[in-house]
C-alpha cells in the first residue's frame, strides 16, 4: 500500500482512484477517495486544537470523517520526550467510513519525539511533514536518535517534506509586536494552513474560530490568522509541495438532512438535555471531575437556561448521592464518571436499585485497573457495570456504538430509567468520548416521548376499606413502582436500603418476602423491552458471526467490509443492550457455528454470552488503550473463518 492513493476502502466498491488534473495554477491536483492524517507534537504544541480545526473544516466541506485524539495524562509532560507526544488522527473520505483509520497516509511531526513515536504506524510511502527547526542535537538525543533521521537515510521509504515550521512562522509574524516565544506558539496554525492547502479545505471557519477564541486579544487572533495564511501560501508557492489533493464531499454517504460534526461526550450531553426536554423533567447532574468524563459536566454546566442543575460534588460518592436525592425529588438525575468513579459509586447504585428510582449512571470507560490509562480507551467495565455491587443488584446496561450514537443512547438509557424506575448504566468509552463524526441533526418530533406520570393519590385499599398509598405496589406490566415525589399530599412515605415488604414498603426481614423481592427486582430488569438485535448477513450463508458491543462497532464493521470485498461470508451483529440482552439474541447466536466477539478487554461480553447461552464463543481481545485496527481485525476474523 502506498500513500496518497486509495488504499482498500472501508466500503466495497471503492471510488475512482488516482484521477489527475491540472489546476488553474501550476500544480497538480490529484483526486483521492480517502485520507488519514495524523498531527503529532509535544503536548504543549496545540495538536488537539489543530486536529479539531482540520476536522471542522473537513466536516463543513461535507466529507465523512472519524477522529482519534490520543494524548498523555500529564497536562504538560516533559517537553520533547516520547511520553509527552500528543497526537490527533483524522480519517476523511468521499464515502461513508467507520474508523479513524489504521495507518496514516500523512504524518505531521512537530519534533523528533513525534516522529519517533509515530513512524511505526506509517505505511511505506507515507508523506511526512517535519518541523526541521526542532531537530537539533539535544532534541534528537532526548529521544535516543544517535543520528538525525532526516539525514541518515532511515526515512528513504517515505516522502519527507522538511519544513522549518518555527522559523517560517516567526518570519511571518515579524510585523506583530510579539516575543519570539509568542510567535513560535502559532506554528501549529502554520501547519494547519499548509495541510488545509494540501487538501483544499475551506478556511473561513478557522479564521472565524480564531477571531472568536482570541476576541479579547485581537493581536493574538490576527497573528494566528497570519500564521495560518502563511502556511497556506507556503504550500501554494514552494516547490517541495508539487501536488495537492481533492477528496470530494461524501454526498451519497449521507441521507438528506442537516449535519454537524459531533464528539461522543458532546452528543451524550445533548442527549441528556434532550431526554430532560422529552420527559418534561428538570435535569440534575451530580458529578466529580474525572478524565475522560469531565467534558459532559462542563457542557451541561453551560446550559443552565434549560433548567439544568449541575453540582460539582466533593467526591464521586456525593456526586451520585446528590443525583439520587434529586431523583427522589422528581428530577431526571444523572451522574457521570469513569471506571474508578463507578467503583466508588457502587454502594449508592445498590441503594438506587433498592429504592427503585430512575437514575442515569454514565461511565466513560478508560484503561484500568485502578488509575490505569486515564486518557486512553478500554471496555473493561462491563462486568463492573453488570455485577459490581453487593447482593443481587441488577442494573440495565446500554452502550453507544459511535460518537454520534451517544445522543440516542442517552435517550434510550433515560427511557429505561424512567419507565422502569431503575438506575441505568450507560457505558461509553474514551474513544467515543473524544472521537467525532458527522451527525444528522434530528428533528424534535423524531425524539421519543419520555413523559412520566408521578403518583397522585392512594393506590391500595386495606382490608378495612382505608385507601392508602403503597410505595412498592408495582405496575403489573413493567413491575415499576410508583414515583411519588415529596410535595404530593397524602403520599408521605419512607423508603430505604433495608429490605422492604412487597407492596407496603415497610421494613421486612421475612425470608419469603426477601426471596420474592430479590426475584422481582431481577424480573423487572429481565423484562425490560429492548429492540431485537439486527444481524447483517447479506448472503445469508455466513457461518461466522462477529458479535460486538460499544465502540468496537466502527473497526468491526470496517473489517467485515474488507472481508466481504475479499469474497468472504461473514455475519455481523452489534449489541446496544447488554442487560437485558435482546430477546432474539440466543436464537441468533445458535444460527452460526462460529461466534467471534472482539472486545477491548479480556473477554467480558464473551464470558456473559458463554454463561447465558452455553455457546462456544471465541474471544478476540486487545487492551492497548487504543481502538482495534480494521486490518488487524480482518486478519483475525479470516483466521477464524478458515479455522
Amino acid at each position, binding site marked *: 500500500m502506498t500513500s496518497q492513493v486509495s488504499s482498500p476502502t472501508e466500503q466495497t466498491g471503492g471510488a475512482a482512484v488516482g484521477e489527475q488534473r491540472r489546476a488553474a495554477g501550476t500544480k497538480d491536483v490529484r483526486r483521492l477517495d480517502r485520507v488519514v492524517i495524523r498531527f503529532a507534537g509535544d503536548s504543549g504544541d496545540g495538536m488537539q486544537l489543530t486536529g479539531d480545526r482540520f476536522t471542522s473544516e473537513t466536516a463543513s466541506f461535507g466529507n465523512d470523517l472519524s477522529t482519534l485524539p490520543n494524548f498523555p495524562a500529564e497536562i504538560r509532560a516533559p517537553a520533547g520526550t516520547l511520553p509527552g507526544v500528543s497526537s490527533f488522527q483524522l480519517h476523511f473520505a468521499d464515502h461513508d467510513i467507520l474508523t479513524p483509520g489504521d495507518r496514516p497516509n500523512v504524518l505531521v511531526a512537530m519534533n523528533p519525539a513525534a516522529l519517533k513515536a509515530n513512524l511505526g504506524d506509517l505505511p511505506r510511502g507515507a508523506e511526512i511533514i517535519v518541523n526541521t527547526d526542532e531537530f537539533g542535537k539535544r532534541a534528537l538525543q532526548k529521544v535516543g536518535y544517535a543520528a538525525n533521521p532526516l539525514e541518515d537515510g532511515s526515512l528513504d521509504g517515505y516522502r519527507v517534506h522538511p519544513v522549518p515550521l518555527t522559523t517560517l512562522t516567526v518570519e511571518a509574524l515579524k510585523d506583530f509586536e510579539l516575543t519570539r516565544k509568542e510567535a513560535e506558539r502559532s506554528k501549529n496554525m502554520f501547519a494547519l494552513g499548509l495541510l488545509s492547502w494540501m487538501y483544499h479545505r475551506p478556511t473561513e471557519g478557522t479564521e472565524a474560530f480564531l477571531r472568536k477564541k482570541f476576541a479579547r486579544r485581537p493581536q493574538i487572533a490576527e497573528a494566528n490568522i497570519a500564521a495560518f495564511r502563511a502556511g497556506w501560501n507556503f504550500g501554494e508557492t514552494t516547490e517541495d509541495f508539487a501536488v495537492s489533493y481533492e477528496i470530494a464531499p461524501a454526498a451519497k454517504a449521507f441521507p438528506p438532512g442537516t449535519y454537524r460534526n459531533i464528539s461522543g461526550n458532546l452528543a451524550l450531553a445533548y442527549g441528556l438535555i434532550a431526554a430532560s426536554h422529552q420527559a418534561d423533567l428538570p435535569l440534575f447532574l451530580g458529578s466529580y471531575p474525572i478524565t475522560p468524563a469531565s467534558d459532559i459536566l462542563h457542557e451541561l454546566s453551560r446550559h443552565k*437556561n434549560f433548567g439544568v442543575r449541575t453540582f460539582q460534588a*466533593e467526591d464521586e460518592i456525593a456526586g451520585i448521592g446528590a443525583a439520587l436525592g434529586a*431523583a427522589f*425529588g422528581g428530577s431526571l438525575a444523572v451522574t457521570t464518571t469513569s471506571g474508578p468513579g463507578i467503583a466508588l459509586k457502587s454502594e449508592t447504585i445498590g441503594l438506587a436499585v433498592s429504592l427503585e428510582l430512575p437514575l442515569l449512571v454514565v461511565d466513560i470507560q478508560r484503561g484500568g485497573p485502578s488509575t490505569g490509562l486515564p486518557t486512553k480507551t478500554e471496555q473493561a467495565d462491563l462486568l463492573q457495570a453488570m455485577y459490581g455491587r453487593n447482593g443481587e443488584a441488577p442494573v440495565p446496561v446500554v452502550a453507544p456504538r459511535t460518537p454520534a450514537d451517544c445522543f440516542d443512547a442517552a435517550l434510550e438509557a433515560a427511557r429505561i430509567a424512567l419507565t422502569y424506575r431503575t438506575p441505568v448504566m450507560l457505558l461509553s468509552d474514551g474513544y467515543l468520548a473524544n472521537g467525532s463524526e458527522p451527525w444528522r*441533526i434530528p428533528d424534535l418530533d423524531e425524539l421519543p416521548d419520555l413523559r412520566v406520570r408521578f403518583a397522585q393519590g392512594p393506590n391500595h385499599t386495606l382490608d378495612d376499606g382505608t385507601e392508602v398509598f403503597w410505595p412498592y405496589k408495582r405496575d403489573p406490566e413493567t413491575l415499576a413502582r410508583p414515583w411519588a415525589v*415529596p*410535595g404530593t399530599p397524602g403520599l408521605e412515605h*419512607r423508603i430505604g436500603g433495608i429490605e422492604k415488604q412487597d407492596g407496603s414498603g415497610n421494613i421486612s426481614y421475612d425470608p419469603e418476602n426477601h426471596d420474592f423481592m430479590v426475584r422481582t427486582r431481577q424480573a423487572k430488569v429481565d423484562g425490560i423491552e429492548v429492540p431485537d438485535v439486527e444481524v447483517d448477513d447479506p448472503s445469508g450463508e455466513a457461518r461466522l458471526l462477529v458479535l460486538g458491543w460499544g465502540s468496537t462497532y466502527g473497526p468491526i464493521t470496517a473489517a467485515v467490509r474488507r472481508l466481504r470485498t475479499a469474497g468472504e461470508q461473514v455475519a455481523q451483529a452489534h449489541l446496544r443492550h447488554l442487560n437485558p440482552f435482546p430477546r432474539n439474541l440466543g436464537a441468533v447466536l445458535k444460527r452460526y457455528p462460529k461466534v467471534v466477539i472482539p472486545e477491548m478487554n479480556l473477554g467480558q461480553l464473551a464470558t456473559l454470552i458463554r454463561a447465558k447461552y452455553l455457546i462456544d464463543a471465541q474471544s478476540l481481545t486487545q487492551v492497548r488503550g487504543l481502538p482495534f485496527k480494521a486490518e488487524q481485525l480482518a486478519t483475525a476474523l479470516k483466521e477464524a473463518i478458515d479455522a
Partner: protein
Amino acid sequence: MPETTTATEGAGTVDALSLVPKAEAKQSMKDFKSDQEVRWCPGCGDYAILAAVQGFMPELGLARENIVFVSGIGCSSRFPYYMNTYGMHSIHGRAPAIATGLATSRRDLSVWVVTGDGDALSIGGNHLIHALRRNVNLKILLFNNRIYGLTKGQYSPTSEIGKITKSTPMGSLDAPFNPVSLALGAEASFVARTIDSDRKHLTEVLRAAARHPGTALIEIYQNCNIFNDGAFDVLKDKQQAEEAVIRLEHGRPIRFGRDGSRGVVRDPLTGDLRVVTVTPENEADVLVHDAHAASPTTAFALSRLADPDTLHHTPIGVFRSVERPVYDTQMADQLDTAIEQKGKGDLAALLAGGDTWTVVG
C-alpha cells in the same frame, strides 16, 4: 437560669422556610407520628429526641408533604421511619450528599438530615464538612452518643481517648472530634448543641435552626443506655449540671454555676477564654455571647471550653448563627440569570448549533 429565648432571633431577614407551602389546617404532634413501631432499645435517648421533633413540627405550620427527613445508617438513622413525612433511610454517611441533591433541586421542601457521630464524623465526614461549607438549606441533627450502637459497642470518633470497647480492649488511641469545633472550622453558618433530655432547650434550638437560611448543625448529646450509659450524666444531674453546663444565650453575659457565680472572660494576654468566679471587680469583664459575630473565633474558643473527659464547662445553645449566601438560592439564581441572558433553552437551536451543512436528497 433566667427564662430566655436562646438565640432564636435570626441573624438575617431571609427565612429558610419562605418557599415551603404552609399547612391548611392546624397540626398536632400526632400528625407527625407514622404508623411504624419504634424499634430503639427501651430507655434510648432517641425516644426523647423523636418526641421533641414530633412535638415541635406543628409549630412550623408547614405542609407535611413538603417535609423530608433523610438519614444515613446507625441507630439514629431509623428516625425517618417514625416521622409521618417523606423520608429516606439511605446508606452510611451519605445523607448530607443525598439531601443536598434534594434540597438544591426542590426549594419548596424543608429538608432535615438525621445522623450520628459515626455516620456524620467517621464514614460521612467528608460530606458533612462540604455540606457545611456550601451552606445548603439543610438542618442536620447529629445524635452524639460517643459510641457505635448499631454495631454493638465499638468506640466512635467522639469517644474519649482510652475508651475500652470490644475493638479497643486496651483503650482507644485516637483523639476525638469535637463536633462543634469541626463544624465551625468547616465554615458552618449555624452551629448549636443541646441535650436529648432537655426537651425545652432542644425545642428552642430546633426552632432557631429551622428558620436559619443555610445549613444548620445541631449536635444533640444522646444517651446510649446499652453501650455508653451515663455518658452525659454530669450534664443532666441537677446538682452537677450547675457547674458543668454553660447555657449560651445571645446578647447575655456568659454566666453559670450557683446563682451565676461563675463566668467566662477573655484572657487579655492570649485572647483565650477562661472560667472565673464572678466578683464585683470582674463582673464587667464577663463575655457577652454574640452568636451573630462575623468572626467564628469566639464561638470556636467557647467550643473548646469543655473538659473532654469530665465534660465540665460544656456550653449548650447556639454557638453561631450568621447569614451568608445559601447554595441552593444561588444555584437557582444562576438558572434565572442564564435565562435572562440567553433566553429559555431552545433544544432545536442547541442541537443545530455549531458549523452545519446540508445534504439534499
